[in-house]
């Protein structure tokens, strides 16, 4: 019998597993594959739809949109999650900076400005409001990052920036330079010494240098420090096309913290079914390498990540389904209304707001408005109520609801009046 199983290894599942592990429940994380961590930029975005500070925006959501995931858990729970997140990353010597008071504007690989609440310290010098001429530097060999385009777009927005290409020091036996390969190269001090020297030559009058986010997997702070020393400028990372090196680092940090507290990750298992007694889920069925496994369980956190994560699935007949537990999905428009004609429509596409509705303890709700299971909580992109992409709140919602769900599940069963 498992005390707790978390389904999904994205940010929400990992934060939930951390909370359960720290409560001593030795959670098992079952996930079909890695979550969006390995793809996403590695920043934590709370709110970016308008110019309000995250704190102000969240406060007004809590009153104006009661079904929004932020509203379900409240602003204090969000702050609590951020604090824990910062502490964990700090302890792992990969600290995140920032908070709820204002967003930082970071340049993207296209040269757009992206509002971010928490960021790994390796990106901090990119804050465009801090002022200071930039050089954006990259490698011809890396097809996922283009300094001239990024610099030209920054310049068009009044930010002094120049794009340059660096010479890749000769490396044997490598032909395909993806972000991960380059990150491994940066782990080598001799390699970054050569890069650092080139940065010094290319720097000119710039005070800071943006590089693709490939500055090492093991010790990114060491890499940044070395490059700053050698170049004489501040150095910061800019996320590339996937895979995301900062995301992989974050995954490693959270995984290590979970395992240290007694949790365990099993990636490569898909949960396909659940069995229950009344309003209590008792068993999960998972499939790995074509063999079905049964898991008796006391508490379940569903963090399967919406349409992108695979937790919500659609078919040609316009049906929308939750894949692991077959919970009811809230979807307000029919098939014909799924998409806006314009890809970049500021209102987003209605289908992506589909998800599982939940109460203020994040328990999944049935069509009758009552919890389907007492001992299940839902977190992250599986939750209904918002297209968090257009709000730029996806990772914020993921870590806040993941952490809150984990805490509430940990308390489940200790509260005698609530259990059946």
């Amino acid at each position, binding site marked *: 019998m498992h005390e707790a199983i978390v389904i999904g290894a994205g940010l929400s599942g990992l934060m939930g597993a951390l909370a359960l592990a720290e409560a001593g429940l030795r959670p098992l994380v079952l996930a079909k594959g890695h979550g969006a961590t390995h793809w996403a930029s590695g920043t934590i975005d709370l709110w970016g739809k308008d110019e309000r500070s995250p704190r102000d925006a969240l406060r007004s959501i809590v009153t104006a949109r009661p079904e929004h995931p932020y509203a379900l858990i409240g602003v204090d729970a969000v702050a609590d999650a951020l604090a824990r997140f910062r502490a964990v990353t700090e302890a792992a010597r990969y600290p995140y900076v920032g908070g709820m008071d204002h967003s930082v504007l970071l340049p993207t690989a296209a040269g757009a400005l992206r509002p971010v609440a928490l960021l790994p310290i390796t990106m901090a010098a990119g804050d465009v409001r801090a002022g200071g001429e930039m050089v954006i530097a990259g490698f011809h060999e890396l097809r996922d990052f283009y300094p001239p385009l990024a610099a030209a777009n920054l310049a*068009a927005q009044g930010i002094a920036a120049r794009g340059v290409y660096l010479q890749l020091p000769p490396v044997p036996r490598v032909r395909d330079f993806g972000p991960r390969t380059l990150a491994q190269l940066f782990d080598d001090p001799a390699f970054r010494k050569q890069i650092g020297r080139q940065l010094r030559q290319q720097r000119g009058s710039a005070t800071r240098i943006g590089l693709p986010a490939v500055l090492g997997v093991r010790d990114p702070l060491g890499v940044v420090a070395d490059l700053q020393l050698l170049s004489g400028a501040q150095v910061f990372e800019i996320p590339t096309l996937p895979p995301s090196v900062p995301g992989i680092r974050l995954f490693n940090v959270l995984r290590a913290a979970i395992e240290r507290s007694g949790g365990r990750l099993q990636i490569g298992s898909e949960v396909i079914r659940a069995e229950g007694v009344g309003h209590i889920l008792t068993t999960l069925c998972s499939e790995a390498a074509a063999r079905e496994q049964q898991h008796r369980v006391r508490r379940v956190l569903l963090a399967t990540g919406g*349409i992108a994560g695979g937790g919500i699935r659609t078919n040609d007949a316009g049906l929308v389904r939750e894949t692991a537990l077959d919970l009811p999905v809230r979807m307000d428009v029919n098939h014909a209304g799924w998409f806006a004609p314009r890809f*970049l429509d500021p209102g987003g596409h209605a289908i992506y707001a589909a998800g599982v509705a939940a109460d203020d303890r994040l328990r999944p709700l049935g069509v009758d408005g009552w919890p389907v299971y007492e001992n299940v909580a839902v977190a992250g992109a599986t939750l209904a109520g918002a297209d968090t992409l257009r709000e730029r709140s996806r990772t914020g919602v993921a870590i806040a609801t993941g952490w809150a769900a984990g805490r509430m599940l940990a308390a489940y069963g200790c509260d005698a009046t609530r259990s059946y």
Partner: protein
Amino acid sequence: MRTLTTDVLVIGGGATGAGVLRDLALRGIRCALVEKGDLTHGTTGRYHGLLHSGGRYVVKDPQSAEECARENEILRRIMPHCIEDTGGLFVVTPADDESYADRFVAACRRTGVWVEEIAVSAALRREPLLNPRISRAFAVRDGAADSFLATHANTDDARRYGAQVLTYHVVNGLERVGDRIIGAVCEDLRSGEMVRIHCAAIINATGAWAGKIAALAGLQVSVVAGKGTMVAMNHRIVNTVINRCKMPDDGDIIVPIHTVAVLGTTDIYVPDPDVYSITPEEIRLILDEGEHLIPGVRRMRALRAWAGVRPLYREEDATHDRDIPRTYRLLDHEVRDGVAGMVSIVGGKWTTYRLMAEETVDVVAHRLGVTTPCRTAELRIEASAQPAAPLRPAISHGSAARARFAILASPFYMLGHRLAEVEADDSYGDLVCECELVTREQLEAAIESEGTANLDDLRRDTRLGMGPCQGGFCTYRAAAIWHERRSARYGQAAGAAPATRLLTHFLQERWKGLTPTLWGDQLRQARLDELIYLETLAVDRLPEAIPDETIVTGHAAIATEAG
């Protein structure tokens, strides 16, 4: 206002116009072609991809069948690099009238369409996903044809004989003096400049738009536009063209082409060839019909859908548009309307484009007093046969890149050929588009070629963004590389705005093709792409990211698809 003079002006850069241009040029006639978009911007770029054996038409339209059978052999000979010899099968499924098969075979014999009945077990061995409950199977000489490549092959060859090609030139007026048309007025959509073209004769090869061109000279030509929708599956679920053995109807063919297999089509009357959209019912119908041929196809991954408009010439009033004979019509306006200086060629099929061109040019050449006979059926199109000798630099639209593919990929550039090339060059790291194996070098050659206006043109040249991820990775890369090449040529002054417009335009173009078939895995993929462009890159926050789909070639005249 610029003025050009030529002998014959061809309007329309589809299969027919390109074929006409080559025919004219080979006969030594001075000629030019104008096209309002990129070449193959019309129906030719949106067709099903089938080199007809003729089998489809044997019962219903024997004349078309005969023409297809003859032209099929000719095209295989003159442009082998544009055709993949997939072969075809006609199969009788449980839903089909069993008696049709015997009529089909008899009609094949009458029309000279090669056919051979094969054992059902042999058919199933050849195509394992085929419905095991088929009762009979017939092999025919269907093939898959790349119309982008073929059209460019024709115009490139024509240029070698001195022809001129002006893309992104839209004809807005015809100059008529009394009973004679003496030229046309075009707008260069990229510069906004007006261009007057004087000529002795005009060939109207504008397909579904032929009526609109004729109207510019006060003539009436009724072209019924029949919209056909197709759905591409994300891999080659079959390697042979599969047809239902029955009277031609909706959704009864599957064509494997390049990396995908295409199901189609439908046929729905549309009042205006510039205004149409794809409905969910059509997609459902195509997939439902597909189930008869490949059970389970509905659960496979559909990549995208698109539609084209059939140009069907209407003699008198016909009610049902599958009842209008498919055979093309050549309208000599001097004989028909008493107005000299223009002929219109409408209807037909891609497979018969060469024949249509031959007949058209016969009439025009005769008027001009040229007696040189047609040679297009004998002379192989040589684009693929001259490796190192580059075509004149910058003469043609993407010709450098295309010539390269043609050489490397002869006789047909299937995915396997590109993979072999990438493996030989060890150039994985150079792939800009992993799905379709487009290297940076190929992309740069296409960008450098004259006349490429946007990423969608590059897509037609290189298949960029046409694979399973539908532009998720390559759109950013291609826009950035475009930016670098253009700044190298024109300096930094242009800024990043053009690249941003290109990028958002391409994303929008892909989105249009995706939405009709977006569910299941493909929806998940689209969401990933959206996360990349809106989160990681935040392109919606770029200074020039006006989410407007017609910005780059922002002219209503060339926006062929609605919604």
